[in-house]
């Protein structure tokens, strides 16, 4: 089993989707239980990663490598480093909560919903451990299919517009990446990512390839100005779709930065780091203000996701800036580490925020902030969790949101205090939009009679929120295990930045 741990992780949920589908619409409960069992099993298997993966040894571990397409030298090659392990664990963890969260909420064809979720989970895990560029690309694109279905069938009133926009937008970005990969294949004769990383490229080639990659991953992250699909997709997606989208799918974009832009085009990346840094700062400051004026809760959290993902891209590219001076390698590492922690933390916090909104939406069938007010009076337990996640969203110390942001700001300060100044704006704006939303939704008197009829969260919802809260709190209070897990891999990435390929 341990020899094929990664394959097992990918294919278990994908294969598990088949019995779930067969369970059919006649026995929805069977489909629900089956999918939960599959998700829990996958999570349990993913825990073995922690046992098997040696954080201090570094490098890519647990590798599986089979020749897939002989005449093209494409391999079915999987391996993980610390960053992948963290992301895979997050994926399997969140998947359980998503399936539990959808339990009786999805009444229309639940078996198809659950099956799509499981397929999505498997494909996402695949993305995080593929070490062959073509395999990565295929999985990267294949993710779109289940997500397209999830938003399109179970989404809100404008779901068709949102899901088409989502699909075409992301597809648009990635086809240029495909061209870049094919070009690299011409030069290297292989799609093996380690070989591509060692391939010497001229500055001109690097620049073109850099921008091809950038457009693919920037759309996925999403970065300003190509973020406009995200609010639409989030607003229209069912709760589970939003959670997976925010928690895991956005990370695919930043993960792509680490796996492709950093090793393959380090010189172009360094040269254009300013561009990404500026875009990240715009995301942090401007999108923060945009979030402030939102009247739809999901839209607000979606914009706050864009702002938080800005921290991840900032952390990655501040490392580029810092590595121009070899003396500041420690700071570069700090920035990169901060970006990684922020990735994981944002996964839990945004997933939790969307779950909370889902809980309220199931009762009220509205996401407009103005329809709420005084929810705490009828749902005190729910209010507790909501406030907690809101605090994490603004980066309160003691929650996971604080750790990553703090590390990134610290690193940017040593690169350029001005960058740090703008980045630190998030502490104010983030608090402003999140807490203002909490104020309008939770506190005050009940003005809408329907709010008075809202029921307290049930056991299933409590389980989901407690699980999220535990993760957020654990990472906030004691991030050391996570940092240790990723440390060697992060150092390795930072070293790659210093290698010139021209």
């Amino acid at each position, binding site marked *: 089993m341990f020899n094929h741990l990664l394959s097992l992780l990918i294919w278990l949920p994908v294969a598990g989707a088949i019995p779930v589908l067969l369970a059919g619409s006649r026995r929805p409960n069977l489909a629900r239980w089956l999918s939960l069992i599959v998700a829990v099993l996958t999570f349990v298997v993913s825990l073995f990663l922690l046992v098997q993966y040696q954080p201090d040894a570094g490098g890519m571990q647990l590798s599986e490598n089979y020749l897939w397409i002989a*005449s093209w030298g494409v391999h079915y090659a999987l391996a993980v480093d610390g960053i992948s392990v963290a992301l895979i664990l997050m994926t399997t963890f969140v998947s359980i909560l998503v399936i539990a969260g959808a339990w009786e909420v999805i009444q229309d064809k639940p078996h198809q919903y659950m099956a799509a979720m499981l397929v999505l989970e498997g494909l996402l895990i695949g993305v995080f451990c593929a070490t062959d560029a073509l395999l990565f690309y*295929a999985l990267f*694109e294949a993710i779109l299919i289940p997500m397209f*279905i999830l938003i399109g069938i179970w989404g809100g009133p404008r779901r*068709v517009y949102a899901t088409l926009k989502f699909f075409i937008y992301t597809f648009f970005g990635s*086809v240029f990446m495909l061209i870049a990969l094919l070009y690299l*294949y*011409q030069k290297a004769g292989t799609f093996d990512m380690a070989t591509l990383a060692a391939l010497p490229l001229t500055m001109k080639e690097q620049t073109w390839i850099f921008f091809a990659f950038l457009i693919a991953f920037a759309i996925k992250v999403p970065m300003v100005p190509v973020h406009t699909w995200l609010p639409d997709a989030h607003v229209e997606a069912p709760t589970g779709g939003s959670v997976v989208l925010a928690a895991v799918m956005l990370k695919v974009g930043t993960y792509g930065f680490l796996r492709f832009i950093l090793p393959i085009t380090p010189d172009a990346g360094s040269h254009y780091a300013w561009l990404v840094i500026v875009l990240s700062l715009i995301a942090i400051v401007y999108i923060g203000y945009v979030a402030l004026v939102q009247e739809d809760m999901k839209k607000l959290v979606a914009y706050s996701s864009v702002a938080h993902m800005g921290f991840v891209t900032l952390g990655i590219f501040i490392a580029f800036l810092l590595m121009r001076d070899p003396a500041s390698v420690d700071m570069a590492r700090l920035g990169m580490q901060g970006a990684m922690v922020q990735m994981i933390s944002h996964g839990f916090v945004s997933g939790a925020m969307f779950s909370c909104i889902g809980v309220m939406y199931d009762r009220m069938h509205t996401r407009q902030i103005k329809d709420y007010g005084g929810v705490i009076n009828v749902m005190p337990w729910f209010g507790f969790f909501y406030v907690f996640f809101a605090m994490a969203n603004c980066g309160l110390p003691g929650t996971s949101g604080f750790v990553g942001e703090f590390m990134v700001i610290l690193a940017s300060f040593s690169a350029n205090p001005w960058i740090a100044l703008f980045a630190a704006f998030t502490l104010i704006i983030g608090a402003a939009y999140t807490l203002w939303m909490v104020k309008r939704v939770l506190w005050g008197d009940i003005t809408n009679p329907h709010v008075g009829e809202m029921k307290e969260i049930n056991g299933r919802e409590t389980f989901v929120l407690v699980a999220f809260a535990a993760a957020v709190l654990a990472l906030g209070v004691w991030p050391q295990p996570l940092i240790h897990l990723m440390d060697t891999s992060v150092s390795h990435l930072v070293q790659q930045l210093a290698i010139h390929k021209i």
Partner: protein
Amino acid sequence: MPNLNDILIMLPELYLVVAACLLLLLDAFMALKERPWLHWISIAVLLVAIYLVIVGQPAQSVTAFGGMFVRDGVSEILKVFALLTTAIVFVYARPYLIDRKLVTGEFYTLMIFAVIGIMLLVSAGSLITVYLGLELLSLSSYALVALNRDAKLPSEAAIKYFVLGALASGMLLYGMSMVYGASGMGGTPTLDLAQLHHVSSYTTAPKLLLFGLIFMIVGIGFKLGAAPFHMWIPDVYQGAPTPVTTFIASGSKLAAFGMAYRLLDAGMGDLSHQWQLMLAVLAVLSLAIGNLVAIVQTNLKRLLAYSTISHMGYLLLGLSAASPEGYAAAMFYAICYALMSVAAFGVILALARSGFECEEISDLKGLNQKSPWMAFLMLLAMFSLAGVPPLFGFWAKVLVLESAIHANMLWLAIVGVVFAIIGLYYYLHVIKVVYFDKPAEGSVLAAKPDISLRVVLSLNALALLALGLYWGPLLSWCRSAFGL
């Protein structure tokens, strides 16, 4: 004089000719209630032909009848898939033909004659064989389009197809005559493709040769349905009975690839630097016209017609590389396209019934509610046509894009992917109608109970997924045909 060896080389074709004639006789003497047996007999005839093609596969390229007929890896693969897709078409066609009382021997014999045309075309060793195969295929197709002779639309489509087809054949023939003439200037005139290969080195009339080439490319463009020679495609696709459309969109496209390969590489390979750019222009036009016009279509068959045009653009991407890798990619693409379009039309055929053609996109509304399995098969076909991984269509696109980049035509590859994004929209639109829309009032949408159709269609669509996950052997087979 033809000897026994020549006949053995041509055995599958000769067998099919005999079988088709016997079918015609059988049809004439069969009692009316025994007619349905024709269906199974015809499928068996095709399967035996596939067997004959495979067992008789020569180790290397062999010729018969003084070089008129070539049997090599390329022709073997194309024949196998042409026969296979035609057999699939037969299976899909049965309920449709029964509903419309079209189960006659003519359908089966004409189809088999068309397949013989395809087989001759892809095995052509001389200009005459190319023309012979093409005409056999075309004339059978014209008649097939008009099979339902009482209906107006099919008759119109058949006339249109015939007039334009005759024009294109004329162009091709004219081009061939010029090439023949050019081969005679400074050497002995020849129709043999292998000898024509060297004409450009000795002919005293290079301009004439070039003109001939251009006219032949017009003929190829017409047969492929590449823009600007695509005008017949939408009307014929829409007007023809759906099983015939399915055939034109699958087997016929394999033939078109074979014809292009024979004429351009075997015959005019020396002039590849001349025709490369011509094909690139055809490719760009096909991609643009096919994808852009498809967006506004409301008729599913018409939409698939424009989608064919765009797919021929991708196929030309591979051909225009003018290298063995490029040809292998293009052949892979042609096979992939044939399987995808058969699956897409198969779903239409599975849903159609008497009085309900199921050819408007809106007819598919809420298919997922009524019959989730058919909806899923349609999803596979559409995502494959759109070129989304992990489905088969994606890999075929990757291969032709790679061959374009390999041939130093990066710009062409970029044009290709840009139009892939545009094309994505209308395939997604079909999936949207199938999955996200509610069924219309009084919709009669339901899948046919015909078991053979359901099984073969399921296998066909699942093959798109399976080949998407493991396409190595097929690619190796295609590459080996070109000596790679």
